C-alpha cells in the first residue's frame, strides 16, 4: 500500500516518485501524429470490435486469432456468451477462421473483391466504418494446409459492436490488455524516423548535430569544446560508427550509407545520443551557472554602460566587415581547397559581423526598453558611435606589430586585412569570460534585479551566449587558413582604406553614413514596428556590400573610420 503523502518543501518535491507512467508517455503529451499514430495504433481497437472475439487484419483478410470468453462486454450479450462458451466456441478454437461477410443496418459486405480476399488495410477500414449498434458477422474456415478438412458450415454471430470508450468517462474498455494498443507500433521510433518519407516529424528530433566534447578535452564556459573544429562541425546523428566525427554530408543520400540500418537501430537504439542545444550529450546535463557579477547602481548607469557597449559592438562589426572584404573572391582562385577555404572564411566572418550588428541593435533595444519602462531620468541613446578603445583579453603572446594595448587591456579600433595576427587579435577580443563577456554579465546581474522587466534579462543573456560562438567561429577560420600563406588568400597584405577623394571610397562611406542615419531614426523611438527606416537601412547595406566589393577589387577597403596602420618598425624587430 502506498500511503498518501504530500511533498511539502523543495527537496521533498524533488525526491518524490509519482506512481505510473512518466508524463511523456501519456496521450496528452503526444505529438498527435497519426501515421499510423505515434502513441497508439488505433487499428488495435478494431481487433476487438466484436465482443468475445479477437481478430488480426492480415494480407488475406480479417482472421480470428482468439476467442476470449472472459471479455467483460459479453455480460451484456448473453446469447453470444452462451454460444462462445459452447459448441460454437469449440469450433472456432480450431482451424483458421476468417470474416466472410459483415452486415449492419441492412447492408451486407462480402470481404472479397473480384474474387480476391481483401488485404489488411481494406478489411480493417471496413471494420473501422462500423457504427456502434447491432452487427452480424459470418465466419468461414479456410484450409491452412493441403488436404485439411474444412467442410464446416460458416458460423454467423450477432452482437453490438463494442463501445471502445466508456461514454461517461472516456476510459478505454477493460477488454484491452495493457500494452495491446501500442503493440504494433514501429518501435523504437528512430526505426520509423529513418524512413520518414517527407522528413516532417511532428516533434523535435535530431538529424544533423554537433559532436560531444570528448572526455578530458577542455571546454568553453558554454560547454562547447575548446577545439573549434569539434565546436562547430555538424555530424550525422544516425551515423553507424558512433565514434566518428566526420562532417555530415550535404545531402541525405550522402549520409545514408554511413547510417545505422533498421536492424542495427533495433539492436542498439540506446547508443543514439541525447541531443541538447544541438549538441550530443552522454552525461547528466549541467546547466551553465550564471556568472556572478556586481549589479550596476541604477538604470541610468546601466543605460550608460549599454551605450558604451553598443559603440564597442559597432566598432568590432566594422573591423570584421573590413577584414572580410580583404579576402580574395573564391571565384577568382583555381585551387578547389582554397576556394572552399575562402568561401568558408568569408561566410563565417560575415556571420560574426552580422551578429555584432545584431548586438548593436539589441544594446539599443535594451536602452529604449529601459526608457519605455520609465526607468531613465535622462534620454540616453540611440547609441551609434564607435568606441575609441577595444578591450582585448590579456595575451602575453600578443604580436608586436599590432596596435599597442593601452591602459589595462585595450587597443584603438583598427581597419586591417585578415592577417594571421589580426585574426588572432579578433579571437582575443571575443575570448569567453574576457572583457566583453564580463561587461554583459554585469548588465545581466543588473537586469535580474526586481525593478527591470524580465524580458530584458533574456535579451542580455542572448548576447552573452552569442558571443561564445564568435570565438569558436574565428578559431575555426584560423584552422582553415592555418597552413596557407597570407598572400594566397588575401587580396593584398596591406589592404589600406580608400583615401579621401577616392570616388568609390567616398561613395561607400556616404552609404555607410546613410545607414547610420536610418538606424538612428529607427532606434530613436525604439519602435519595433518601424519597418520603413529598418527596411531602408537594409537596402543601403546591400548597396554598401557592392561598393565594398568594388573597392576590394582595387585592393582597398571602406574607410569606415581613420585607420590605424600596421606598426612596421616593430614588425621588423
Amino acid at each position, binding site marked *: *500500500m502506498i*500511503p*498518501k*503523502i*504530500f*511533498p*511539502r*518543501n*523543495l*527537496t*521533498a518535491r*524533488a*525526491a*518524490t*516518485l509519482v506512481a505510473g507512467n512518466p508524463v511523456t508517455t501519456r496521450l496528452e503529451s503526444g505529438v498527435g501524429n497519426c501515421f499510423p499514430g505515434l502513441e497508439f495504433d488505433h487499428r488495435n481497437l478494431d481487433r476487438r470490435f466484436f465482443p468475445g472475439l479477437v481478430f488480426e487484419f492480415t494480407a488475406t483478410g480479417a482472421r480470428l486469432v482468439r476467442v476470449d470468453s472472459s471479455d467483460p462486454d459479453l455480460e451484456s450479450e448473453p446469447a453470444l456468451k452462451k454460444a462462445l462458451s459452447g459448441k460454437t466456441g469449440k469450433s472456432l478454437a480450431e482451424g483458421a477462421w476468417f470474416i466472410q461477410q459483415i452486415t449492419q443496418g441492412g447492408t451486407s459486405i462480402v470481404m472479397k473483391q473480384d474474387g480476391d480476399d481483401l488485404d489488411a488495410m481494406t478489411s480493417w477500414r471496413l471494420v473501422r466504418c462500423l457504427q456502434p449498434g447491432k452487427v452480424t458477422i459470418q465466419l468461414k474456415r479456410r484450409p491452412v494446409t493441403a488436404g485439411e478438412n474444412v467442410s464446416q458450415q460458416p458460423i454467423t454471430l450477432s452482437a453490438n459492436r463494442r463501445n471502445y470508450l466508456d461514454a461517461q468517462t472516456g476510459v478505454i474498455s477493460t477488454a484491452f490488455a495493457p500494452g495491446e494498443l501500442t503493440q504494433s507500433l514501429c518501435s523504437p521510433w528512430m526505426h520509423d524516423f529513418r524512413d520518414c518519407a517527407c522528413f516532417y516529424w511532428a516533434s523535435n528530433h535530431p538529424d544533423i548535430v554537433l559532436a560531444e566534447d570528448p572526455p578530458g578535452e577542455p571546454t568553453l564556459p558554454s560547454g562547447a569544446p575548446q577545439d573549434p573544429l569539434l565546436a562547430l562541425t555538424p555530424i550525422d546523428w544516425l551515423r553507424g560508427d558512433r565514434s566518428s566525427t566526420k562532417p555530415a554530408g550535404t545531402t541525405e543520400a550522402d549520409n545514408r550509407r554511413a547510417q545505422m540500418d533498421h536492424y542495427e537501430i533495433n539492436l542498439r537504439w540506446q547508443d543514439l545520443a541525447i541531443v541538447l542545444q544541438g549538441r550530443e550529450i552522454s552525461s547528466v546535463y549541467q546547466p551553465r551557472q550564471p556568472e*556572478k*557579477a*556586481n549589479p550596476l547602481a541604477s538604470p541610468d548607469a546601466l543605460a550608460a554602460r549599454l551605450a558604451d557597449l553598443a559603440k564597442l559592438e559597432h566598432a568590432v562589426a566594422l573591423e570584421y566587415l573590413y577584414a572580410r572584404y580583404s579576402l580574395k573572391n573564391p571565384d577568382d582562385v583555381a585551387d578547389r581547397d582554397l576556394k572552399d577555404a575562402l568561401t568558408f572564411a568569408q561566410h563565417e566572418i560575415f556571420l560574426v559581423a552580422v551578429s555584432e550588428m545584431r548586438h548593436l541593435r539589441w544594446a539599443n533595444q535594451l536602452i529604449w526598453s529601459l526608457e519605455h519602462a520609465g526607468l531613465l531620468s535622462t534620454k540616453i541613446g540611440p547609441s551609434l558611435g564607435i568606441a575609441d578603445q577595444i578591450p582585448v583579453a590579456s595575451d602575453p603572446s600578443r604580436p608586436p606589430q599590432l596596435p599597442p594595448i593601452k591602459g589595462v587591456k585595450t587597443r584603438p579600433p583598427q581597419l586591417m586585412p585578415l592577417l594571421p595576427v589580426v585574426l588572432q587579435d579578433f579571437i582575443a577580443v571575443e575570448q569567453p*569570460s574576457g572583457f566583453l563577456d*564580463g561587461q554583459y554579465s554585469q548588465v545581466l*546581474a543588473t537586469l535580474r534585479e526586481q525593478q527591470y522587466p524580465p524580458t530584458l534579462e533574456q535579451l542580455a543573456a542572448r548576447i552573452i551566449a552569442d558571443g561564445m560562438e564568435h570565438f569558436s567561429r574565428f578559431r575555426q577560420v584560423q584552422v582553415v587558413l592555418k597552413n596557407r600563406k597570407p598572400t594566397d588568400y588575401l587580396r593584398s597584405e596591406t589592404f589600406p582604406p580608400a583615401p579621401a577623394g577616392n570616388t568609390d571610397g567616398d561613395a561607400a562611406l556616404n552609404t555607410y553614413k546613410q545607414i547610420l542615419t536610418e538606424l538612428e531614426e529607427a532606434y530613436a523611438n525604439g519602435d519595433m514596428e518601424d519597418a520603413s527606416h529598418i527596411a531602408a537601412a537594409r537596402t543601403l547595406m546591400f548597396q554598401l556590400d557592392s561598393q565594398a566589393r568594388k573597392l576590394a577589387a582595387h585592393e582597398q577597403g571602406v574607410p569606415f573610420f581613420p585607420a590605424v596602420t600596421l606598426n612596421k618598425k616593430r614588425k621588423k624587430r
Partner: protein
Amino acid sequence: MAELVILDGRVAPPRGTFTQGRTPPSLHLLGGDRPLAFVVKGSLLFGLEPKAFASIQDNPTAQEELVNSLRTRHRNISTVPPVPLSAPNSISLNIAQSCNLSCSYCYAEEGRFGGRASMMSLETAFAAIDRLFAEAVGQRVTVGFIGGEPFLNREVLYASVEHAIVRSHETGSPVGFSVTTNGTLLTASDLDLLRRHSFVVSVSLDGGADTNDRHRKSFNGKSGFQAAIRSLQPLLQNPGKVRIVARCTITREDLRVLNRIDALADAGFSEIGVSPLRTSPKPGLVLQDDDWPILLDEMVRAAGSEKERLRSGLALRFSNLAIALKQLHAGYSKPLPCGAAASYVSVSTRGEYFTCHRTIDNPRFKIGNEAFGLSQEKREQFLRSRHVDRQEPCRSCWARYLCGGGCHAEVLAAGRSGCDYIRGWLEYCLRFYDQALSEFPSLFGEGEIAS
C-alpha cells in the same frame, strides 16, 4: 504536542540521553492535526493524511520503505567536507580589537579577546584581502569588518573597502561587504560608505533603551541605545541598498523576545534576530537548564505574533523565524553549523587566521598565519572533527543536519546545552512552515500549493 521520535522504528530514548552505536534516526514524525514526516538526510518534509500517518506511526518497515522510496541526492551527506577543501570566499577582518562599549556579557571582552587592545594595520588588512581574492578565483567574495568596534579603526576600514574594489575589478570576482557594529560611532561619511557599497550592517542591540542599556553601556555609563539609534537614524529611515539587521543577545536575566522585537521595530529595524548567551566572561548571565523551556515559549510567542502580522499582510521581522522558514523550504541540510573554517574565516589584528570571529586569538582555533596564510590541513582536521555524524549526542539526533551541532566556539568552551530547546524550536518551525506554505505561499515565491 504529541511528539514521537522514531529511530528507524524504535521509540527514542528519553531526550537528552543517547546510546552509543545506535542507528542514527532517518525519519522524524510529528503528529497532530496536520501530521508531518521529516526525512533527516536532505531535510525532506512531507505532509501525511492522518490515516497514512497512523499506518506508519508504529510500523518501522513502512517508515523504512518511505525513506527508501525517495530519490534524494543527499544520501552522501556524511562525506562533507569535500576534499580537497576549496578556499574560503568570505573573511572577516578584526580591524579593531578594542571597543568603546563595555558590555558585560561580551565574548570578546571589550573586543580584546582576553588580550591587549590592538588595531589592525593597513598592510595586514591588504594582505588578507589580496589572499582572499587570489585564492577564491572567479567566486563572489565577501569582506566583513568586525571587532571590537570596527569603526574605531576607520582609516583601515575605508582603505580596505577601496582596496577590495580594486582587486575585484582586477580579478573579476564581485565583492560584497558586511560590518558588525554597535552603531554608536557612525558618522555621516560612514553611512555614505555603507550605502555606496551596499553593506550588510549587523547592529548589536538588545531591545529598547531599558533592555539594551542594562548590559550595553559605554565606559562613562551613557546609554548605548540612544547613541546607536541617533547615529543610525538616517540609515534606518532610508536604507537604500544597505541591509540593516539588529541582533539581540538574550541573558538569563531577561528571557523575553517579543518586546525586544517590538522595540527595535519601533526604532526602525525591519530585521531583528535574537541569540541566547551560552558563554560569557560573566557566567551568571549564561542561560541555565531551567531557562531553555521559558526561552522556547518566548520564541514561540514572538513567532505567533509574526503569524498574525503575515495574516494582516505585513512583513516578517523576526529573522530567526524568517531564516528557518527559508532554510526549511529549500531543504537546508548540512553536517556543520556554519561556514566557519570552510567558506569563512576570520583574521586577527596580527594577521593570524582563526576559524571565525568568535575564536580570535584562541590557539585551539588558529588555522593560519600572515606569512603562510591558511593551513589546509588544519582546516580539514578541524572540520572533520566537528562533523555532526562524528559526535554524540548529535549523531543520534533527528535535527542534526538542521542544527549542525551548535556553534563550535560555544560547544568547545561550554559543552552542549539547550538541545531540547533547539529541537522544540525546529519542530515549531516545521509546523509553522507547513502551515505558511498553504496560507502564505507568496512568502516562498509560490502560488497555491495543492495539499
